[in-house]
């Protein structure tokens, strides 16, 4: 089996990893390691296929019951290590997740809670002052992206085949909206948030950077250097900004496309106190 995108980029970005990597191991669905990045050290975390996972519906690179809690552990372990540090280490979520795990056992056992544990860990790390960066190198789908990446201070994506952010897989969305896959593409060109193209997603103001011209499947030294430079710039930017997600409404794109989101905040503030 070929290595997943998440594994490829995890390996590329942690080739100089410290002992942490052996400690966290190469078993199971989560990879976590500290590795040098610029003049600091960052925690890199990704989800990989886990063919032997004891939950049969969670053997792919998806967020299932164990994945959610293990993600939370990897993030919280970095928070604990920096509890007394004045400068908190950056945390990079390498995002390559097809979906949450769909299954009867998953629902019974509370996959929503496991995914929420991932959300909580990343949000809490951000609030504690860790620059949290999501690096999208594959699909970033729906609840899986919420659990692993969407709480980041800054989101960076490669612009390459196989990379998309969306609330629902294309085939399933076509079924539910009773359109053909081609019809869905046409709709996405008219209605921006419906699009499966990263160029359209970039216009929503949610992305810090879309990096074009990278070999996503077999990154060379130059590719890795470029991505590392982007990560370093995003970390610097995050350290200068607020710890909440308000930066997502600041760009020129956001002011245009998310005008309604901004208007809601404005009126909520105006009407908050009784006149």
């Amino acid at each position, binding site marked *: 089996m070929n290595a997943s995108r998440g594994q490829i980029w995890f390996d590329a970005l942690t080739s100089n990893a410290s002992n942490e990597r052996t400690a966290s191991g190469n078993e199971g669905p989560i990879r976590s390691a500290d590795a040098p990045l610029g003049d600091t050290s960052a925690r890199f975390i990704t989800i990989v296929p886990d063919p032997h996972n004891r939950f049969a519906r969670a053997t792919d690179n998806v967020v299932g019951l164990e994945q959610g809690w293990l993600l939370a552990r990897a993030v919280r372990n970095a928070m604990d290590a920096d509890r007394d540090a004045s400068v908190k280490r950056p945390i990079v979520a390498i995002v390559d997740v097809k979906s949450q795990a769909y299954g009867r056992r998953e629902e019974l056992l509370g996959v929503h809670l496991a995914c929420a544990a991932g959300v909580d860990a990343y949000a809490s790390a951000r609030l504690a002052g860790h620059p949290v960066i999501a690096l999208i190198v594959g699909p970033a789908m*729906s609840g899986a992206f919420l659990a692993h990446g969407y709480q980041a201070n800054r989101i960076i994506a490669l612009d390459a085949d196989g990379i998309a952010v*969306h609330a629902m897989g294309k085939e399933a969305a076509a079924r539910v909206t009773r359109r053909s896959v081609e019809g869905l593409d046409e709709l996405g060109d008219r209605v921006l948030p419906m699009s499966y193209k990263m160029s359209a997603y970039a216009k929503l103001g949610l992305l810090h950077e879309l990096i074009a011209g990278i070999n996503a499947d077999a990154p060379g030294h130059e590719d890795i250097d470029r991505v590392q430079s982007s990560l370093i710039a995003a970390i610097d930017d995050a350290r200068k900004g607020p710890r909440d997600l308000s930066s997502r409404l600041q760009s020129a794109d956001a002011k245009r496309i998310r005008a309604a989101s901004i208007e809601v905040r404005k009126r909520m503030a105006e009407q908050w106190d009784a006149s």
Partner: protein
Amino acid sequence: MSGHETFIAQHSFIELTARERARALLDAGTFRELIGPFDRLESPWLAMQNVVCQADDGAVIARGTLGGEAAVIAAIEPAFQGGSIGEVSGAKIAAALEMAVREFEAGRKILPVILFETGGVRLQEANLGLAVIAEIQAGIVALRRYVPVIGVIGGMVGCFGGMSLAAALCTRLIMTRQARLGMNGPEVIEQEAGVEELDSHDRRLIWSMIGGEQRAAVGLVDTLVEDDTDQVRDAVLGAFESGVPASHRTEQVDAQLERLARVDPSAIDPVVLRTLWQGDA
């Protein structure tokens, strides 16, 4: 009271609209809606897909008092697009949570309640629905450092998709037995994993897995209530009384992994799980 009198005295919470629910929970005469229907902040994305908009986009934000203390309630309207979260309805909830955080930063207190009734992301607003759900989640995590964030899942829509994660982030959850709480709706599971994985028409099986009674029995929600407005209100007031816990459910990584480790995936069902997870929520 006799059984008959109790029965007659009940007032359904489920049958109320989002606006009526918020009004019924707040102290009498204190309901004040923010960004109400006359603000006409509608979805910018539905009309271009020939879907009729609603003037409040299916979310009601109300301030008032709860037991005499300042409160804010975010209520989702199940009758509009299945309670789905679009850019505007989601931004209203996120903005209310963000404003509540500011209250605490300014040294004031406010009690936040979210009334969940939602299938999750509104598919016609896909990526923006997902983005605002992330913002709602960020708001809950930021706010619950100061005050319990209380979630109520009334039914009959229940709470699904990304909003089930938002519910799980709440400090305490109150649920009726009619309501369901799950990440993937039964139809989605059947579609993605096949009817042999889950038959979405088997209502008894579905409620036995993700219905309020089961969720309360295995510690995934805190309080089970009857479909009665007074009971819901009492449960909400009670949920604030014990304050912010030392750790939230989503922070209890070791304990929850240990709970999972006790489960044998080849021999698990709702009844077995109740025995396995009883009393350690």
